[in-house]
């Protein structure tokens, strides 16, 4: 029992999360999204991964904005959210139209266009 508090102390987070922690999370989210886009087969999951990448950028922008004391990053976040919403609106419409026509959203079955 006595070893546990010291172990926790070593592994515990600092009292306040700093810029680097936010950037680490942001980079992780970006990497998860990126590899998800490359590796997943379902179009909808790929789409979620794309959104994850945009949100990773938004998180980093907020963290930088807070750290640097400049407001541009927060303004950029508003535009990121708007753009993401527009992309989702158009993207889901395309996916639904494609599903109606082909009855699948698996990328390995969407191979009409190839060499």
């Amino acid at each position, binding site marked *: 029992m006595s070893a546990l508090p010291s172990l926790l102390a070593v592994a515990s987070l600092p009292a306040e999360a700093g810029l680097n922690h936010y950037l680490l999370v942001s980079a992780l989210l970006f990497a998860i999204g990126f590899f998800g886009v490359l590796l997943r087969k379902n179009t909808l999951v790929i789409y979620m991964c794309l959104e994850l990448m945009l949100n990773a950028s938004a998180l980093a922008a907020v963290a930088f904005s807070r750290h640097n004391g400049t407001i541009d990053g927060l303004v950029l976040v508003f535009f990121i959210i708007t753009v993401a919403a527009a992309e989702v609106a158009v993207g889901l419409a395309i996916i639904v*139209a494609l599903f109606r026509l082909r009855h699948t959203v698996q990328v390995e079955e969407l191979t*009409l266009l190839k*060499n």
Partner: protein
Amino acid sequence: MFAAINLSALQAAAGTNQWMAIYPELMLGLLALLLLGLELVLPKAPRALIPTVAIVGLVIVLVGLGINFHTAFLNRDTFAGLLHHSDGGQFMRVFFVLSAILVCILATVTLDRQPVSKVEFYHIVIVITAALMLLVQSNHFVMFFVALETVTVGFYILVSYFRTSAYSLEAGLKYLILGALSSAILLFGIVLLYGVAGSAGQQGALPGATAEPMNFGALRGFLAANPDNFLANIGAVLVLAGVAFKIGAVPFQVWIPDVYQGAPTPVTAFLAVASKAAGFAVLLTLVLNVFSPLQEVIVPVLSVMAAATILLGNLAALSQHNVKRLMGLSGVSHAGYLLVGVIAGCREPLAVGAVYFYLLAYLLASFAVFMVMAHVSGSDDADQDLEHYANLARERPFLGAVLAVGLGSLAGIPPLAGFMGKLLIFIAAFKAAAYLPSLYWLLLVAVAGVVVSIYYYFGWIKAAFFPAWRPPPMAGDAAPPVIARVGLTAGVTMVVLAFASVILGFYQGPLGAWLVTR
């Protein structure tokens, strides 16, 4: 944490909102809305005139831009530094309106054969055009990102516009996924640059740190003070990767053949010409201005990219039978030549004018070819085969001649405009090679690429001019598409495009002088 809102600073910023400076973009926005309004209020019969309204409106904006080319806003920032007006930007504005007119004319030929609504197509084309014009004039990364995304989201819709065609939708989906991926990469690069450059007034701030890290000029100042900063270099490379996707440079060219084949022919033309030209205009701003302190890193990356793009584009185009894929892959190789021009621009100012001239020659030749493609293609827009061109020159000598001029100019046959474009870029690259020896290798690759490209362009001309033996049609074979009748507008446009390609090869006149001395 933020400074209290400074009213006088806000007033000063609002004072720079020179709405007259973006008059053409505002006019285009109103024109786009007007089209939708007309669709709502007009009875059925006169609605067929709406495309004409779109074309006439675009022509008026083009004329206005031409008359007012040397505006009072040249070399000034407006909108608190969001936009910067330069004569290169003016050239690109004219370029985009011109390509929008041609896309609309192409659409009048193609859309009639499809069961789709018409007016929205013109609406989106015009909105994209306005966004492209703002994109090339942006001087701030927020403006840059928003304009770029407006263009990209508009293109998602246009690419999948034939929503009863599985090809068009599949192309739309592929463009959507890869386009959004590249946007996300570009955005992450912007955020990294913003974070590194914006630590002014903080403890441990880097030298040159600025309170306006999204502004191109301020960012350039920061990069000049810290050319070795790791994060800043990563950010710049990520931003350039996002732009490289738009121009279709290797390794970001995977989407090009599929999307070009599936997209409606006018959209393929719009992507091939306007989207790519916007990518290069942005690349010129970024490489020669904003990221110029990082050229030690950027120039080698771009050089490898250019060589790979020229080789891969040309080699992949050799085996294509679908003409839309052929145009796409040969467009990849054109992006490679243009990249050589951008690299040369780092040392030789002539190269910038050469890139603009090349883009103009590419516009004229590409639209001539796409016009012919729009007439030859049948109702199945994605299936446009080289075989459909057999006997074209005998049955339709006019279309055959326009096709020959367009393809000849794309291949760079003297004395056509495409040849002059390549020549100017190669001369600029040769001059710059005195400072950047790797350009000698690139020139070698580029010349080899031009030689290879002659093979497949002339394969197409051969298909149109020399009848090949064809097996007698079998029972199950699809009949070749019927070649559409050439309307008055389309015919006049093709004549103008072909003649412009020829004349611009002989005589560049004031345009050439302006491009070379600017």
